[in-house]
């Protein structure tokens, strides 16, 4: 019988190796797999390359992973935020490498990896600094950049519901990067608020089919980043 559920969160992350490339879902605080990231901190892997839209907020989740100096390089579109001091300090101290990728190009490069497309062309970034060092090509009189797939060793994503096969649905805008990240990693690890039996998810409404998922951890009541940030603000104000 197929059962992708892991008994413990530690077990789900046991084989993350130093130097791994890890896709982490989330946009703002929606969809961040905070508990998986905290388990990754426990697990100990270092020298990581992390792909996420942002670069962490406050001192939780991705920001905490950064603070622990476990990330060599971050690939993201928007490494700024009202609570982005951890990344900021590392960046200014040149203690982290940044690859800045336009948001849509980031999503599409991840999808490309998942879909077996080694490279594609996009007009995004043509004529800008983003084009530096990239091949350009003209189609129909317009200039496009060649962008390549972003493959990863692991994806850490957050879902609303999962069944034991690994079919997933999400909650509202917490879907964001998770479906394409699930496609693009050799091993996709999911934290889900609810774990249900196969057949309970409507087959017409499954967003991530089970083929893209390797391991599932049940995290019924994930931390709310906004609570953490509010507490942080309060602490600083006092």
């Amino acid at each position: 019988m197929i059962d992708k559920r892991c008994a413990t969160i530690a077990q789900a992350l046991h084989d993350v190796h130093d130097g791994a490339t890890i896709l982490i879902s989330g946009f703002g605080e929606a969809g961040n797999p905070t508990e998986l990231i905290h388990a990754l901190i426990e697990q100990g892997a270092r020298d990581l390359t992390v792909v996420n839209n942002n670069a962490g907020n406050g001192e939780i989740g991705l920001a905490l992973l950064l603070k622990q100096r476990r990330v060599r390089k971050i690939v993201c579109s928007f490494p700024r935020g009202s609570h982005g001091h951890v990344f900021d300090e590392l960046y200014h101290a040149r203690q982290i490498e940044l690859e800045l990728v336009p948001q849509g190009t980031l999503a599409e490069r991840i999808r490309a990896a998942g879909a077996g497309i080694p490279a594609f062309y996009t007009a995004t970034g043509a004529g800008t600094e983003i084009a530096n060092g990239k091949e350009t090509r003209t189609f129909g009189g317009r200039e496009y950049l060649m962008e390549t797939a972003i493959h990863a060793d692991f994806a850490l994503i957050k879902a609303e519901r999962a069944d034991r096969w690994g079919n997933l649905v999400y909650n509202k805008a917490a879907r964001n990067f998770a479906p394409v990240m699930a496609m693009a990693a050799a091993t996709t690890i999911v934290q889900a608020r609810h774990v249900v039996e196969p057949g309970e998810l409507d087959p017409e409404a499954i967003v991530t089919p089970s083929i893209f998922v390797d391991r599932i951890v049940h995290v019924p009541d994930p931390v709310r980043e906004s609570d953490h940030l509010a507490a942080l603000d309060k602490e600083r104000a006092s």
Partner: protein
Amino acid sequence: MKGWTRDEIAARAALDIPDGAYVNLGIGQPERVADLMPPDREIMLHSENGILGMGKAPAFEDRDMELINAGKKPVTLVPGGAFFHHADSFAMIRGRHIDVCILGAFEVTCAGDIANWSSGGNAPPAVGGAMDLVAGAREVRVIMSHRTAQGRPKLIEQLTLPATGRAVVKRVYTELAVMDPAGDYFKLVELAPGIHLDALEQATGAPVSAG
């Protein structure tokens, strides 16, 4: 020199959005456009992070941090709205399905070049979806102040800041005027009340043509 208020600029930009349009509004001042739409028009708001049909901000007690917009603020969903993933969301942008995108900008040139992602300081660079939007939306428009706080023109001939995109801006709304980048000059579409053409020319760092 007065010209339009910020809300008047947003309302003027709203006037140009056709009924039924799919619209992406940048963070900040462009967001006001949604609140100032003529009442006879129904538009559908897109947010980069996988929402079509964004509604107004919820009451504080109703906010859901898994229903936020591209600016990471809580929003709501209108009936007929839909959720989708990031690659699908940017397929809408890159594939020219967004009818109108209204952004803020640091600089816009008469050739339609735009700079709005990097102010050139030493903060970490952050581009978000800006380059995708200017490259992909069918019609890119900008709401901005005409000059910097120091009085330097922001509508100019050549960008001084890093470009977000080239030859993409079709219309600019400022407190002084509505103008269309037309190659080597800005074409005047409408002057704000009380603003004279020579004052506009003075405030603009590129030729302006009223004809």
